């Protein structure tokens, strides 16, 4: 029980933190201090949190342009992330990557990419190396239902299954690629079946329960660590509350019903997990997080922009 509630606290902190960071981004965005496209995870945080809580720092994650939640859930440095969004020299990519290109190698965040599907094979290669090195670490790749369309998805799953590499594929199926519904891009709603055809277990998680995500991910990951499992495909059904890119909502566009989102807002994991904890504890967590966030934004504000001399730096590694 004791341990259970410790875990719940950890989950709440992570969920709350990500949500609040992105809400702050929404608040700041109109000031044009963030001159970079932002793809928010608001509503989808539970996927990154559920999976990443089952990971160790030495495990590696790979993600997409919609990468704030993943970066934070995996332990990426918040100050560096905000500074990056602000285009500052102190950012995790020294201002060169912006919101879509986050990495923090020290915490196993091995890069997010703005080209859909491109990190999938990268994660498989990473996992291949882990296996070669007899490491008990795993690689996890997060991508959307859009990435499933790409040839890279196919080539990656095929190779991962063939070589039995320790990689967890996490498809965050929010049913849309920008404004295109999953079923205008796929004949049927059967992504798990597709994954199984490559020869790997596949699990679909509906309902948005962060603990469910955690349990399933942890089980598979632990088996991978022990060398008892190769690649696994996880389809997590979720919902993007905001517009595809930017801080606003997009119901006026008419491509989806407000109702679709409303259901998910009702099942929001942030208040749900909060409800499982003492009010007292929540207050402490929230307080700490708020302070961390304001410090991070202040850090970003106060940091300097990179200077001209930085332009050519880091093109090649010495």
């Amino acid at each position: 029980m004791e341990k259970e509630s410790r875990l719940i606290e950890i989950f709440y902190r992570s969920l709350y933190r990500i949500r609040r960071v992105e809400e702050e981004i929404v608040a700041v965005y109109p000031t044009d201090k963030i001159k970079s496209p932002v793809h928010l995870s608001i509503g989808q945080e539970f996927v990154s949190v559920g999976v990443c809580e089952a990971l160790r720092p030495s495990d590696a994650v790979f993600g997409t342009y919609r990468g704030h939640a993943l970066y934070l859930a995996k332990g990426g440095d918040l100050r560096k992330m905000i500074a990056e969004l602000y285009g500052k020299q102190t950012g995790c990519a020294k201002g060169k990557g912006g919101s879509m290109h986050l990495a923090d190698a020290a915490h196993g965040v091995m890069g997010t990419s703005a080209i859909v599907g491109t990190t999938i094979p990268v994660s498989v290669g990473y996992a291949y190396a882990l296996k070669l090195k007899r490491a008990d670490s795993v690689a996890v790749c997060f991508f959307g239902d859009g990435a499933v369309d790409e040839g890279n998805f196919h080539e990656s799953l095929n190779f991962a299954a063939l070589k039995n590499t320790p990689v967890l594929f996490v498809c965050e199926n929010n049913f849309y690629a920008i404004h295109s519904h999953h079923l205008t891009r796929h004949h049927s709603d059967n992504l798990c079946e597709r994954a199984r055809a490559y020869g790997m277990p596949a699990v679909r998680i509906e309902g948005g329960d962060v603990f469910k995500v955690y349990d399933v991910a942890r089980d598979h990951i632990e088996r991978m660590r022990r060398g008892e499992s190769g690649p696994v495909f996880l389809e997590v059904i979720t919902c993007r509350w905001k517009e595809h890119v930017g801080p606003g909502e997009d119901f006026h566009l008419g491509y989806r019903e407000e109702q679709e989102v409303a259901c998910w807002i009702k099942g929001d994991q942030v208040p749900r997990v909060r409800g499982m904890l003492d009010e007292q504890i929540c207050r402490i967590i929230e307080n700490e997080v708020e302070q961390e966030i304001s410090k991070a934004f202040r850090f970003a504000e106060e940091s300097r922009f990179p200077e001209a001399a930085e332009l050519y730096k880091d093109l090649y590694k010495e």
Partner: protein
Amino acid sequence: MERTLSYSEALREALEQEMAADPTVVLFGLGVDDPKAILGTTKGLLERFGQERVFDTPLAEDGMTGAAIGMALAGLRPVHVHIRMDFLLLAMNQIINMAAKMHYMFGGDLYAPLVIRSMIGKSWGQGPQHSQSIYPLFMNVPGLKIVAPTTPYDAKGCMVQAIRDNNPVLYIEHRHLYYQKGYVPDHLYTVPFGKARVLNPGDDITLVGVSQMAVECLRAARHLEEIGIKAEVIDPVSLYPLDIETISASAVRTGHLIIVDNSWMTCGAGSEILAVLAERGLLKKIDVRRMGFAHTACPTTPTLEAHFYPDAGKIAVSAHDMLSPGKRWSPAGELHREEVEFKGPF
């Protein structure tokens, strides 16, 4: 009064009129039928032509390019749209191994008329993977035609020409051109490929700007005018075939040539133009320079991005420096940043 449209309206009009005129034209790509309608350029086309002729696709750049080739072989005239030129890197196999060689490698028995629209992103932190402008990669490859129109007039005329052309045509649009305004006739017309356009006449120096860099060159020309320098601004319009004659004649006349690539410079359009002039022995008396993207991935932060791209100010300074070496000058006050409107006659 002259009829004025924006670049994006001109593009939309070209598509709509040509689709109405030719039932074999089909239009597809991610988002062509969505509420944003590729920044308005495909607005209303789904409603008018139906979802068989105007359709969204899965994210599958190489596959859909292959599909476009197949449609073309079957007698359609497909227009495949990419909202970023960077995505063409996923389709190089079908574009270069297949489309570019389709007619030649089957000895003329097959041909694939298709249009690949792609947009160059810029600024607001588009960053390394959303701002590439990789037309030099295609210029190297025989079998493709490549156009990058700058004016609304050419946007429309080149699109109609691209659709009617019996070969694969890469049609390159720059996001920042979308709001440029200019004269556009209301009827269907074509702009033939391979003819550069002189956007501004001048005798002192020749500025060649590719795609949006033509606009920067025009702005630079205004700065230079203030100090009495008359710059001729040339928009190549089509990169393959390339109208080297117009550029060469101008450069011979002015004796000074700056080519501003809208891409990296190594093996770029500027390199090619200079190489041709050099082979013709014309550079004995002409001073030349290239400008273009910094040789690095595009950084996201605005402070570095400003150093990454050429702009009117840098072009003007460079031109001045070429004409008056050693003398320092930079455009006074605010840079000309207002929208340039394009006037005919074309």
